[in-house]
Structures are given as C-alpha cells and as structure tokens.
C-alpha cells in the first residue's frame, strides 16, 4: 500500500515536472507560502471583509474586468478583460452589455453564463444577505440577460464610475452552486467552505487556524497560472508570523515593520519591496460634545483651536520616529495612490509659536502647571487609541508630548477595538487615532467626512465634521468625467477640509513586503498586492523541495491512476 502511494506520488511529481516545462518559457511550478496573521473571515465574495478572505477570493473567482495597475475608476480606461472578453456601452450610457468569454468555465466544469452575473448582482443587493458591497453598487439597478453570453448592467443614472462599480466590487459567483441556498444561510453552507470559482486557482482545503491551500487551475480559460500551489499559513502572533518568514518556512510576508528590516537584511536570500497602500491615519477630533451631541464640543467645536492644535504637531518628525521610512505624512482624507490626489496639497504648517499665539488669542491662558485653561476649563482631553496597534500608541505618546508643549494636556486611553468602535459610533469620544482603508475610488470620502455621513445615525463620519462647501466640492469632483477636472475639484475639496482641521492628518503607511529571492514578483498594486500572483514564477533551478510537491488534487489524480482498477489507494 505504501509502495503504491509512493508510486502515485512519483507519477504526480513527474506529471508536475512535465506540465511545468511546457506551458511557458519561464516555466510553471513552485509553491508560494504566505505567512499571515489570521484566517479569512469567510470566502464568499459578497460577504468577505478580511484581507486574507479578499486574497483568496481574488485567486478563486474572477470579475468581469480587472481595474488594471493605473487604478483608474473613470469610464473603462485601463480595465482589462476577465470573464467578459468585451463590452459595449449603450448610447445613453445607462447600460453596459458584457459579453462572457465563451471558454470560461467554473472549476466544476460548468460553463459560465450571463445568468451567473445576474444572480451575483441580485443576491448582493438582497437585503437578507447583509452584504457590505450592497451600498457600494447602489448605482446598479439590475442585470438583464438577453442571451446566455450577454449580461446587461442597467444603471439608475449615468455616472463617471459606473463601470468601476459594476466590475470592481463583484467577483462573479456560480448560480448553480448558490441558487438553492437562502442568502441568510450562505455563511453556514457547505458551499462557503468549498468555494467554486472561475479564477486562476482552485480551492483545495482550509484547515481552520492553520492554513488554506489553493492549486493552479491548469485548464483555466485564461491560461494556467505559473505557481502550482498557494498556501496561506496563519499565526495569530505577529512575531511568530514574521519568524516563519525569516526562518524560511514561508516565502512571503505582507507587512514588515521597521524593526524587522535589519533582520531581513541579514538574510541574503530575502528581499523587500515597498508600495503605497490605500490607507491613511489621522487623529479625529469630535466636533460635537460627547455628553450631548446637540452641542458643539467645548474644545474642538472651535475651528481656530483645531488649527492651533494641528500646528503644534510636527507630523513629518512624528511619522519618521514611528515608521522610519515606511510611511509618509498624510495629505488629508486621501492617499497619494489616487490619480486625483495632488501630492503638493497645502498643509497647515508646523508652527508652535503661531499655535501658542492662536491659543492665547482664544483666551486659553497658561496656568502654573503649564496647562492652559479658559473660564475654569482646562485644555485637557482624552485621546482614544486601539490597544492592539503598537504604531498608533507610539504616535499617541509623541502627540501627547508635542501638544503638552503648547499647553494642552492629553490623557491617553487604550481600548479594545470593539469598545473603541462603539465609542466612535456613539460619538462618545474627544479625540481618536483612526485609520481608513480605502478602495481605488476616492468616493468613500463623502460618507466618512461629508455632512450626510455625520447626520445619518448610520453614518461613518464619527467626528461630525460638516461643511457644505466641502460637500459641494466633493459632489462636483465625483460627477466629473475628465480626470484633470476631477483632480482640480478634489484638490479644492481637500484644501477646504485641511484648513478646517477636523482631524490632524498623520500618516500614510507604505507597505513593505518581504519575499524569498527565488520568487519573481510582478507589480504590487496598492489596492491588492496579490493581484498579479498568477504571473509570479520561480525559476526551475531555484526551486526547493516544497516547490516540487504537486497540489493535493494532482496527487490524488496520480494516486488513482497508479492504483489497479477497483482498488482504492486511500
């Protein structure tokens, strides 16, 4: 029996080696082991929230079109065909007809149909599912299917980002797998554990809290991906995850910290690469009184005071101290990766003299203890920080010291993340160190900093910043079809909010990935470093034993071919 199994494994290795050399000049084969923090929350495209889940989904499922490295969200410029091999805009732009690639098949062999597209959109919008994607595709009215190869997206109104809305948010799901399951039961279904997609990799197995494995879909309609196996290994402790990478048990680590870089440099076989992420960090000031949201905040309700506090913080020095070269000072409620962001946005300067002058002029007098007060109220407030973020705690301590120099006393409060979110939601905080992880579209700024997001009980504008000028400029920018106009309008909107200082814009982290030098990477995209994994490869002469292990599915096939008829090998 054991001999039979070894014969099977040998066959699989040979099969792997044969297929590995014929498909391209660079060859296919190899295993990519990614060391990461935790399991995906789920691997259902319409429900996923975690970064690990998004990575798996992007490998297993396909979208109709891919956004491309430029991250353009206007019209369809830069988008490349995926499940749709072409598309046609209606003359009035109220609909787009996508033609499904006739070779596209689900991993179970069933052809991809236009009805799959219609099903994906309808179920994502179904309120019983509770998909976080639903509000983002609100501009899509419905999908019709004139034939099995054509899916027509209908929009409520034309808008510059309608193509992006239709394709970026929606990996297409197989109707024949999910149709019989009520949306409210999707999470608990067997289909959720064994996803079947049409993407470059097939799902193999998920061992909770240990690893998740995918294997190359060798018969994929877009050609087989180069790497044979992708394996995510999970370690809840950061130091353990990074040690797996440093010790050679993993090939890729997605977020190195500054203190890891000297250690990586000691390993000649390891490399690092940086890319701009889509995240920005800020110290959010609550403009409403936490005790009574109908009143302005006794300290932060005043625009000049907020500006004075912003002037007291040396943001470039602070970012350098905490992140070294792994972050840039944030520009505002935006990131440099957006083509609509002007990297030279004017900022409130670091000027402690001017800051003190403003505070004096506002009547905040320095007391014997060095803390300012006005009408008996000290210039003292609480800065809430998520306890899990070491970097944000360091930022908080540095800010505390810098603000002390102008006479403001900051009490730091470290909180459990759910507790912090609850305080945000109830607007029951003074100042909080926050971060938004955004998407390629700058449109989310309307919800997180606009008046609508402040007034709606369900809004994400927790600081309650409201300025109709800012709102109007953001609306105009989002309605612009031309990139140059859009950039100009966004710049004006950002200038408005920067000068109003509802937050101190702190850092825009650069992500540093670490990888084994035998891996040949492609571009690391700001929204998804993993977007080009199907093109990554490992030269045959640099492969290590784990690179030559076939995927479990191939091995099973080889095992059964080596077994005599009627005999089960395992």
């Amino acid at each position, binding site marked *: 029996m*054991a001999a039979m199994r070894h014969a099977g494994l040998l066959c699989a290795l040979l099969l792997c080696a044969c297929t590995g050399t014929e498909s391209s000049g660079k060859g296919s084969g190899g*295993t990519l*082991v990614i060391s990461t923090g935790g399991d995906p929350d*789920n691997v259902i495209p319409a429900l996923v*929230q975690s970064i690990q889940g998004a990575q798996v989904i992007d490998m297993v499922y396909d979208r109709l079109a891919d956004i491309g490295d430029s991250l353009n969200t206007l019209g369809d410029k830069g988008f490349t065909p995926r499940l749709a091999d072409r598309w046609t805009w209606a003359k009035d732009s109220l609909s787009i007809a996508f033609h499904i690639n006739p070779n596209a098949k689900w991993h179970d062999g069933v052809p991809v149909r236009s009805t799959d597209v219609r099903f994906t959109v309808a179920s994502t919008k179904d309120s*019983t599912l*509770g*998909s*976080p994607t*639903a*509000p*983002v595709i609100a501009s899509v009215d419905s999908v019709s299917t004139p034939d099995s190869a054509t899916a027509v997206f209908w929009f409520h109104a034309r808008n510059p980002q309608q193509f992006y809305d239709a394709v970026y948010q929606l990996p297409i799901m197989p109707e024949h797998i999910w149709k019989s399951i009520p949306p*409210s039961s999707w999470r*608990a279904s067997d289909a*959720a*554990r064994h996803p079947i997609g049409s993407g470059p990799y097939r799902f193999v197995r998920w*061992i*909770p*809290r*240990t*690893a998740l494995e995918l294997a190359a879909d060798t018969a994929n309609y877009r050609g087989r991906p180069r790497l044979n196996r992708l*394996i995510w*290994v*999970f*370690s*809840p*402790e950061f*130091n*353990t*995850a990074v*040690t*797996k990478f440093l*010790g050679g*048990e993993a090939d890729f680590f997605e977020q190195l910290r500054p203190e890891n870089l000297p250690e990586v440099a000691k390993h000649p076989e390891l490399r690092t690469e940086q890319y701009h992420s889509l*995240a920005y960090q800020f110290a959010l000031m609550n403009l409403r009184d936490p005790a009574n949201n109908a009143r302005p905040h006794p300290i932060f309700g005043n625009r000049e005071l907020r500006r004075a506090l912003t002037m007291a913080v040396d943001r470039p020095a602070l970012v350098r101290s905490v992140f070294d070269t792994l972050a840039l000072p944030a520009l505002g409620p935006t990131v440099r990766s957006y083509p609509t962001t002007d990297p030279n946005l004017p900022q409130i300067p670091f000027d402690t003299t001017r800051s003190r002058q403003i505070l004096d002029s506002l009547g905040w007098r320095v007391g014997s203890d060095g803390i300012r007060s006005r009408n008996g109220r000290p210039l003292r407030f609480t800065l809430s920080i998520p306890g899990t973020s070491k970097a944000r705690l360091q930022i908080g301590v540095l800010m505390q010291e810098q603000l002390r120099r102008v006479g403001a006393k900051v009490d730091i409060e470290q909180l*459990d*993340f*759910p*507790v912090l*979110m*609850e305080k945000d*939601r109830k607007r029951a905080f003074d100042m909080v160190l*926050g*971060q*938004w*992880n*955004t*998407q390629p579209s700058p449109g*989310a*700024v309307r*919800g*997180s900093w606009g008046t609508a997001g402040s007034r*709606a*009980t*369900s*809004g*994400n504008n927790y600081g309650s910043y409201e300025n109709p000028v800012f709102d109007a400029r953001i609306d105009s920018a989002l309605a612009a079809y031309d990139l140059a106009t859009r950039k100009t309008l966004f710049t004006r909107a950002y200038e408005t909010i920067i000068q109003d200082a509802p937050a101190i814009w702190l850092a825009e982290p650069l992500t540093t990935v670490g990888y084994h030098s035998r891996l040949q990477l492609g571009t690391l995209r700001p929204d998804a470093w993993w977007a080009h994994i199907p093109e990554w490869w490992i030269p045959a002469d640099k492969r290590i034993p*784990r690179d030559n*292990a076939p995927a479990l599915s191939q*091995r099973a096939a080889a095992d059964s071919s080596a077994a005599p008829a009627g005999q089960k090998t395992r």
Partner: protein
Amino acid sequence: MLRYLARRLAQAAVIVAIVAAITFTLIHLAPGDPFSAVLDNPNVTEKVRQTLRAQYGLDRPLPEQFVKYVGSLARGNLGWSFSHERSVSEVLATALPNTLLLMGVALFGSFALGILVALVQVARRGSITDKALSGVSLFFFSMPDFWLALLALLAFTYWLPIFPVGGAFDPVMHEYMGWGARVVDRLKHLALPALTLTLLAAASVARYQRAALLDVLPADYIRTARLKGLTERQILRRHALRNALLPIITLIGLSFPALLTGAFFVEKIFAWPGMGLAVVEAIGTRDYPLVVGGVIIASIMVTLGSLLADLLYAWADPRLREQ
C-alpha cells in the same frame, strides 16, 4: 461511591449552568458587538452592520436572546461562531483535542519533572545541587509565560533552528510525508509549546513537592524505616513520597483550569490552534456564542478536574476512602 459521584456530577451541572448564565450576561453587557468592529473600511455602513445584527438576532432584547440560547443549548446546539463562520461545536471540537494534547503532555511532564527535581533536592538537601535547583525552580516560577515562550521561539526556531516555528503540524508538506515522518512532524511541533508549559508548571510542582517531602521526613514512620535499615532512596520513594503527594494532588486539580486558560499566550506565540486562544480571541471580537461555549467546556473540565483530584485524594489517603 456511585451516589457520591452522582451527587458531585449534579453539583457540577449546576455550577456549569450558573457560570454559563453569568458569562452570557457579562459578555453581552460589554461595550461593542461582533459587528461594531467591522471594520476600518469606510464603505461598510452602519446599515449593513444593523442588518448583520438582525440576521443573528442581536437586535433582540437580552432576556429574549438568553431564552433562545438556553433553548438551543437544551437541544445540544452551542450556537454559531461569528468570527469563525462555523458552528461553535465544530470550532471547539477542532480546538479541544489540541488543547488536551498540549495540556496532557505539559501536565504529565511538569509533574514528572517537578517530583523528580524535588526528590533530587530532598535527597541532597542543603547541598549545592539543592540550592542550584531551588534557584532554577524560582527562576522558572517567576518567569512570565509569554516571555519564556518568545525566548524559546527565538532560540530554537531562529537562532538554532531545530524546531518548526509554530502550528500543530507542517501544513505545506505534512500530506506528502510517510506515517512515521508525520508522527515526527507532530512531535516536533508539539515540543516547544509543551516544553514551555512544562518548565513553567514543573517549577511550582518542584517547590510544593520539596516542601511537602521535608514536612514528612521528621515523621515517626520515616524514622522507623531508617531503623529498619532502608536506604535514603528507598525511604524517599516508598514512604515519604506517597505521603507527600496529597498537596500535589490538590495542585493537579488547580492546574487543570490554570493550564487551560494560562496556555493562551503559549498557544498564541506558537500558533497552536487550541481552545485558550480561540476563546480569548472570541472575547476580543465579541463572538458571544464561542465565548459562552468555551466557558461551558472549560467549566466542565474544571469541575471534572476537581472531581478527579478528589478521587485521587481518596486513592492516596485510605482515611478519606473510608469516609
């Protein structure tokens, strides 16, 4: 004996029910909920969070949620884990064997090592060996578990890479190994977390056992044994040790919950997919059903541990057996 057992089991059931009810109430009263932490993505609106809360019945009044939970518990259903997206029974069923394996090895190792060290110390009491072992015991006794775990991780997986970094097995190559290699792979992954827990617990066992042995050595029956001409080793093994085991049996009962919950840091640092880590992470993510389910299992184990300690007491002390 059977009546005694039945009475103790009934008491255990009441304790477990009370602990579960208190845990259910406290975790629901803690600020935040499973969906308030979703996420730092500005696209996730409060409306979506509300839909998710309604989907899981978290928008209902607490007493109603409690009654529903008790109802499902009565049917043997521990609920659905929000953070793992699978049933609580399934999460615990995969975590519990790992915890029991780690705990079992650590418990056995720590008591065997602790008793052995104590025997050596008492046999050579007052010598340099005794003092050195006391110092080593104190060193491990006072050492924080996470610190020792991190040190062991760095020392034996990175500076001197003789053990794998973490996990219960090698997920990349395990399936390609033969039967023997798989066992070795499992043992290699078990070694460091088990060693860490063993060293930490053995230190306190050694200190307790040494003190207990020193207490019984002046007893009349030990003097009699000496007069009979037995060697010091025979006296220690045959006469002193059994009589000095009673406090250690108490320690076994106490070690059950301590290892179950105290293994959290060790499980986290060695990525060991056990119960301590699952439950503590569930508290952070407000995964109510998993927290309550984990506490139920833990309290069952604690009460069983206590019962086991009582039975061992009866085995070791004939006076208790008669009572």
